[in-house]
């Protein structure tokens, strides 16, 4: 595995930059084949390791690595494509017809789709949107508004994304906003390898851009929908609370009625050994009802900031 990824890395670093435009397509095909092989090998590793707990950890690391490589590859491919376009096509700025696109684009509290299109540039390496868009590393985003999470038939989502969908997570302006802000806060272990967009205006802009490609814009509130987003943007002092592990242990006894202490996750996700901050953010997301599960919303609703910190501290130190 190490050899392959070493080779792969050098191909990526070397080919993308040196071969450049002329060999762009060949290089791309080659890389896709590499990627397929890598994906296939990962699947093999996953299969053969299915019942070996210690190897499972390796597989997770490999998946993360693969995901990083995928992103890098996609970025490189995008660069190649952009370069090709720049060379073959005269500099045609796509008709940014702000008036017809969105009447309320002038409202500062609402996103600007033209700016959103630019911000979307960083997503484009994995996601397509618009006419002819297909699934790439990420699913295409046509009709994303109103779509159940993890529900687009042809795409292979992470287990957690599917579970969130089954729990009722639907992509609307507020859930998309929360997801874009911090993907892993909304969907732990999502495959989307993206740190998040911290600037609310960037998110408003991107959502204004994306909403143009959803079939039923009447479902999208016309009033500045991101003016009061339900964010999981936690004040630093909340994240800084040092949890009381004794109290956490008592509170955690309630969790253990359902969640397995040994970390197994049949039907109910594992909650041990989470990074403290992820745990805190996820619990606040339930508390604010951004994450959909009704039992978890109920449990989180009555936990104070200190209690959430206590739970996180306790679970972080369990084996």
């Amino acid at each position, binding site marked *: 595995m190490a050899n392959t990824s070493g080779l792969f890395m050098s191909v990526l670093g070397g080919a993308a930059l040196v071969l450049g435009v002329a060999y762009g397509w060949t290089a791309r095909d080659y890389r896709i084949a590499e990627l397929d092989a890598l994906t296939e090998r990962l699947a093999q590793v996953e299969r053969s390791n299915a019942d070996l707990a210690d190897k499972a950890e390796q597989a997770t690391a490999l998946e993360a690595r693969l995901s990083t490589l995928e992103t890098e590859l996609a970025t490189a491919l995008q660069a190649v494509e952009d370069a090709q376009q720049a060379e073959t096509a005269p500099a045609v700025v796509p008709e940014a017809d702000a008036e017809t696109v969105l009447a309320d684009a002038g409202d500062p509290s609402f996103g600007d789709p033209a700016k959103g299109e630019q911000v979307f540039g960083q997503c484009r390496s994995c996601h397509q949107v618009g006419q002819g868009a297909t699934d790439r590393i990420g699913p295409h985003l046509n009709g994303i508004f109103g779509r*159940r999470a993890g*529900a687009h038939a042809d795409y292979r989502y992470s287990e957690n994304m599917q*579970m969130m*969908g*089954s*729990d*009722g997570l639907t992509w609307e302006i507020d859930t998309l906003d929360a997801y874009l802000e911090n993907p892993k806060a909304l969907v732990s272990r999502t495959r989307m390898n993206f740190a998040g967009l911290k600037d609310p205006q960037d998110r408003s802009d991107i959502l204004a851009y994306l909403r143009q490609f959803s079939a039923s814009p009447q479902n999208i509130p016309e009033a500045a929908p991101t003016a009061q987003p339900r964010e999981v943007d936690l004040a630093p002092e909340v994240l800084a609370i040092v949890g009381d592990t*004794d*109290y956490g*242990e*008592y*509170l955690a*006894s*309630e969790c*253990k*009625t*359902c*969640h*397995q*202490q*040994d970390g*197994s*996750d*049949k*039907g*109910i996700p594992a909650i041990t050994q989470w990074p403290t901050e992820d745990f805190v953010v996820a619990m606040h997301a339930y508390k604010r009802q951004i994450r959909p599960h*009704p*039992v978890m*919303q*109920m*449990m989180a*609703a*009555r936990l104070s900031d200190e209690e959430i910190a206590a739970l996180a501290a306790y679970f972080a130190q369990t084996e």
Partner: protein
Amino acid sequence: MKLNRRAFMGTGVAVATLSAPMVHAASHGKPKVVVVGGGAGGATAARYIAKDSAGEIDVTLIEPSRSYYTCFFSNLYIGGFWEIENLAHSYGKLAADYGINVVHDWATGVDRDAKTVALAGGGSVPYDRLILSPGIDFVDGAVPGWDVSAQNAMPHAYKGGSQTELLKAQIMAMPEGGTYVMVAPPNPYRCPPGPYERISMVAHQLKANNPTAKIIIADPKESFSKQALFEEGWQKHYSGMVTRIGPDFGGGNVTVDPAAMTVDIDGEVVKADVVNVIPAQKAGLICEAAGLTDGNWAPVDGASMVSRMDENIHILGDATNQGDMPKSGYSANSQAKVAAMAVRGALTGSRVFPAKYSNTCWSLIATDDGVKVGAAYEPNEEKIASVSSFVSQTGEDEAMRKATYEESIGWYEGITTDMFG
């Protein structure tokens, strides 16, 4: 090796129980907790006290059965989704891994002044704090014509194990187009959705093996838990099979004749092939014997689940009158953790935090069609009060119902591990 030695020592203790009248070995001066009943409440309480006190407290668990058969998910066995073995749990780990003295015997009485529990096998066990979690018994004469001596002809299957197997065997042996009658209990009773989940699972079994069979419910209650969800499911999956006779039509006026296998519902006599009588319920008899009941149930203070009649006795689960929590395994488990914390606090000075309770009851209506209802609770002076709740919605899609079912299996694994280690 280590495990073997411990297991062996565990057996040693059990043998000593039979020969010596005094179960407790020479006192080490450690505080003693005795738990009566090794079910959802008792097993959890014993395990948490033993685990969290790390040897500072002697814990004795008195439970007659060698294996605990859960009532929860027994309906899945009736429906053909689970085997009976899936419902059985041993007390081995509580003895071997947690050092709990497991005594397989019945508690017959409590001397509250001497602070001892009397055993059916003779002798008695002293305690500093006593925890009772004996579950339910049935109210005498609740269904005229039925008493426990008739439970072979007309099973209740409302305590786990042999009764569940008996009921299923009778259902499987029903003649083609036969009739199953359930006599449903009045409130309050163990597991509010339990009878209706059972109806769903009986219907599922009959639809596959005996599709012209009929199901009748005689019900003294106006309405029942998750009613809209069950009725929607019965209509969808078992259309025309289930008839419920509510109190308006005499569903509360029932007598049975176990010899003739008939059920008289408000003057209408039904000849049945299986009669599942679930009588009105009360606290497990030991509560009454100990003088801790008021009416049918044992009142407790929700701050710590301590009896309102004896400050050294905590009572858990189905036997209690505590307020808004339903009588469920989840509730009993939740209450056990509060009581365990209070008992440790009293005996060893460990920290005690304010009580929080919760409950969720999952039910299976048909294959991959799971629903749930739940609430969070906090105690006030008067009772344990519901502070928020939720319930599955009618018309949910298949993915959500399937996820709910899978989650319920996860819960079963979780709670049984939480009880038995």
